[in-house]
């Protein structure tokens, strides 16, 4: 008799148990239940989201591997490919910020090098509660220290990210990590267990009781107010070991380079169960796993514990018997533990045996865990108060005559303020690739990596991650389109053309119809923007149940966009201004009133979150991205910054601060034009009127709205009739904000 009580406690519904019994054509034993429960958890199965994810565009000629594998892979030419992936580690980071973030970095890197790619960069979009609150500060400190402690030690530079703060993240911070890797196309290997008689070799750390059921208990449920319930989750906390991972990276890349492994798969969520069943089912094969052969960190571990442990820094390599000796020798050179824990069979079944040729403890169709996952079309419903909120336009809010104080207030907000306090703790320079470091719109790297000779560094890539829960809470569809546009623009300002996008869908409880509506809308908005901007979606992650004490977070999709720079021989324009420079707004005009809906100004200075987001012309944004890349290539742009949080005001202020120069801007139609966050806009700096005329001419030709805003002059941010603040004052407010908050 299947133990339905146990099934329930493992997070399986009655219907799911029926489904399991149907698949097995008999009752399920406890081990089998545990294996299904982790594989069918929200985290591993995407059971609430998969029916919607299909709407994302994933195809392009240069996409070698789309969503579904360890990482997405795109062709960069010259036989070089880029592996890209984004993951979240939100729930673990709320419980043990340092280890939660650290293991988040470790986990995503394994996805990258399991594909044969050398990890070359990490980006870390972060969301915390207000930093005035000691607990949020503790979480922020721990998370940043964890990313620093793991990322630096494992030898992968962290080249950018985001830091945003909002009360909705106080009980449930967001820790997303994007990672990139480089590989020679011919090394491209997909995790497959083919070849009956091939051996499954477990590499890396021993298996302990840590992280048992992490995906089902931790990643697939919210945080309750009940201390008991929370305490029950505690044994799940895992500790990262960057030194083990570093040796694993070197060993695995050597394994794949020397063709000693048929396939390599990382052990992440759902541990051995996931790795063995996925490699087997994708290879159309079966697998026997020998529990006693798995090196165990603690005495008396049960088969369930061994099969579902999420101990970190482990990889599964599929190896032919002839190569085994060579594999073990290679592993030994790097002091990496290597044990044969099973073999590939032709049965199509995943069998768990007590030991080699031992008793069969569990026997399920390998594909059933992976491919027969349940899919739910959960009820969706537009929030009841939506119409009301949209009607409540911030246009009615009092506008200051002197906007200076508001500009300073915006610059002091952690979502806008200088993030040096964060990224100074990250090694952002390893591999001598980082041409534009954290602090600019996009990070820019030379395209090269150890062990990838075909990439000589003459090309470059630009990366940006963006998200905006404030926009998305007003309108998840348009808000998501706006963040895709922002990321694409950030990359374009570096002179790059769009290559691909990865996304992390951080949402609340999918059992709330409003949350499912948000998720579905966000996916549609992303799909529309990606189609318009030529951005194939090559990977993503869905993190649900981001809620605490019954309150869902704002819909918080986060996207990472990668662009390719064909010739990187001079540094691309930074957030910079040159003497005698002329400022041009591209993608819109500022001499007419604009919508303040969704703006940081309305939220921060008036606690107002209503209205209808400003319209976004995706076709025009696509043209703007192309124009920007051309202008940069032609060397006409001497500084650039996109208009985002805080609107034109903050964009101009950040340009002044970075350059240590003032600007004199005219024809801005009041506070609404100054603080509106209408998307798809960039301010560029041309060196003189002639160059400016050239740029505006090309904007006209491309059918892109624009406005010459003024010139680089003096030592103040001067906007006629509205703002006049010394750059020095802007700079000190902007620079001191985060250090002051973090103490």
């Amino acid at each position: 008799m299947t133990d339905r009580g146990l099934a329930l406690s493992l997070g399986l519904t009655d219907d799911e148990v029926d489904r399991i019994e149907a698949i097995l054509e008999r009752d399920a034993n406890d081990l089998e239940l545990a294996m299904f429960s982790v594989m069918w958890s929200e985290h591993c199965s995407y059971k609430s989201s998969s029916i919607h994810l299909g709407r994302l565009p994933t195809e392009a000629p240069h996409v070698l591997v789309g969503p579904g594998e360890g990482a997405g892979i795109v062709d960069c030419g010259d036989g070089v490919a880029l592996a890209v992936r984004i993951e979240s580690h939100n729930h673990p980071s709320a419980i043990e910020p340092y280890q939660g973030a650290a293991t988040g970095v470790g986990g995503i890197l394994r996805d990258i090098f399991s594909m044969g790619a050398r990890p070359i960069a990490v980006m870390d979009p972060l969301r915390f509660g207000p930093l005035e609150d000691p607990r949020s500060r503790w979480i922020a400190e721990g998370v940043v220290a964890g990313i620093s402690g793991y990322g630096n030690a494992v030898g992968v530079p962290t080249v950018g990210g985001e830091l945003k703060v909002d009360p909705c993240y106080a009980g449930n911070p967001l820790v997303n990590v994007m990672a990139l890797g480089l590989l020679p196309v011919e090394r491209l290997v997909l995790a497959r267990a083919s070849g009956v008689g091939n051996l499954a070799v477990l590499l890396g750390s021993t298996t302990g009781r840590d992280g048992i059921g992490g995906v089902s208990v931790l990643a697939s449920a919210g945080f309750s107010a009940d201390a008991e319930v929370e305490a029950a989750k505690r044994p799940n906390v895992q500790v990262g070991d960057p030194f083990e991972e570093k040796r694993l990276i070197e060993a695995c890349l050597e394994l794949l380079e020397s063709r000693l492994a048929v396939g390599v798969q990382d052990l992440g969520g759902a541990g051995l169960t996931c790795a063995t069943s996925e490699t087997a089912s994708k290879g159309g094969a079966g697998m026997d796993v020998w529990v006693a052969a798995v090196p165990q960190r603690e005495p008396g571990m049960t088969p369930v514990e061994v099969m579902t442990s999420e101990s970190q820094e482990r990889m599964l390599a599929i190896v032919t018997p002839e190569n085994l000796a060579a594999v073990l020798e290679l592993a030994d050179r790097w002091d990496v533990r290597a044990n044969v824990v099973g073999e590939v069979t032709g049965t199509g079944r995943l069998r768990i045996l007590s030991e080699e040729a031992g008793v069969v403890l569990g026997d399920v169709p390998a594909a059933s865990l992976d491919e027969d996952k349940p899919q739910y079309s959960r009820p969706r419903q537009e929030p009841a108060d939506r119409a009301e909120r949209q009607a409540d336009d911030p246009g009615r809010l009092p506008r200051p005559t002197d906007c200076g104080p508001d500009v300073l207030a915006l610059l002091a907000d952690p979502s806008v303020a200088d993030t040096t306090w964060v990224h100074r703790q990250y090694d952002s320079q390893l591999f001598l690739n980082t041409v534009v470091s954290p602090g600019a719109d996009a990070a820019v790297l030379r395209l090269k990596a150890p062990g990838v000779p075909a990439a000589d560094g003459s090309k470059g890539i630009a990366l940006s991650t963006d998200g905006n829960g404030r926009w998305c809470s007003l309108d998840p569809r348009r808000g998501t389109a706006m963040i895709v546009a922002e990321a694409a623009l950030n990359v374009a300002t570096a002179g790059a053309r769009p290559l691909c996008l990865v996304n992390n869908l951080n949402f609340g409880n999918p059992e709330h119809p409003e949350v499912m509506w948000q998720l579905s809308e966000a996916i549609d908005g992303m799909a529309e923007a990606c189609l318009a901007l030529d951005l194939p979606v090559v990977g993503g992650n869905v993190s649900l149940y981001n809620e605490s004490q019954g309150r869902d977070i704002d819909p918080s999709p986060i996207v990472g966009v990668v662009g390719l720079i064909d010739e990187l021989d001079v540094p691309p324009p930074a957030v910079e201004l040159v003497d005698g420079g002329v400022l041009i707004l591209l993608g819109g005009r500022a001499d007419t009133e604009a919508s303040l809906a969704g703006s940081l100004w309305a939220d921060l200075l008036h606690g107002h979150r209503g209205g209808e987001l400003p319209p976004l012309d995706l076709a025009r944004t696509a043209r703007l991205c192309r124009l920007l890349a051309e202008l940069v290539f032609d060397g006409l742009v001497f500084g650039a910054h996109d208009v985002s949080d805080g609107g034109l005001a903050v964009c101009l202020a950040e340009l002044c601060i970075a350059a240590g120069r003032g600007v004199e801007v005219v024809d801005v139609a009041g506070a609404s034009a100054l603080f509106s966050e209408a998307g798809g806009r960039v301010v560029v700096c041309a060196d003189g009127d002639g160059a400016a005329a050239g740029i505006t001419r090309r904007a006209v030709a491309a059918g892109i709205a624009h406005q010459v805003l003024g010139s680089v002059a003096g030592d103040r941010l001067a906007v006629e009739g509205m703002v006049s603040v010394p750059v020095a004052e802007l700079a000190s407010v902007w620079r001191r904000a985060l250090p002051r908050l973090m103490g």
Partner: protein
Amino acid sequence: MAVFEVLVEVTLRPGIADPEGATIERSLPMLGVSGVSGVRVGKAIRLTVEADDEAGARRLVHDLCERFLTNPVIEDATVTVAAAVML
């Protein structure tokens, strides 16, 4: 009123992996050392505490451990009152 010399030993909870301890242990053969196992690395925090009596000192330090010196999710603390000087 008295002054107490207190030692707080912060250790990883049983079952929580200790990569540093494991790495140290694995390196011992390279040093020609054998017969050493179970290496675990923790913190030894020494404090001087003013309190009416030892019980008071312990209360104060335990509270400090809970709220500040450890993350109870992964760490345990053992408090030893080493010496006491009456005032």
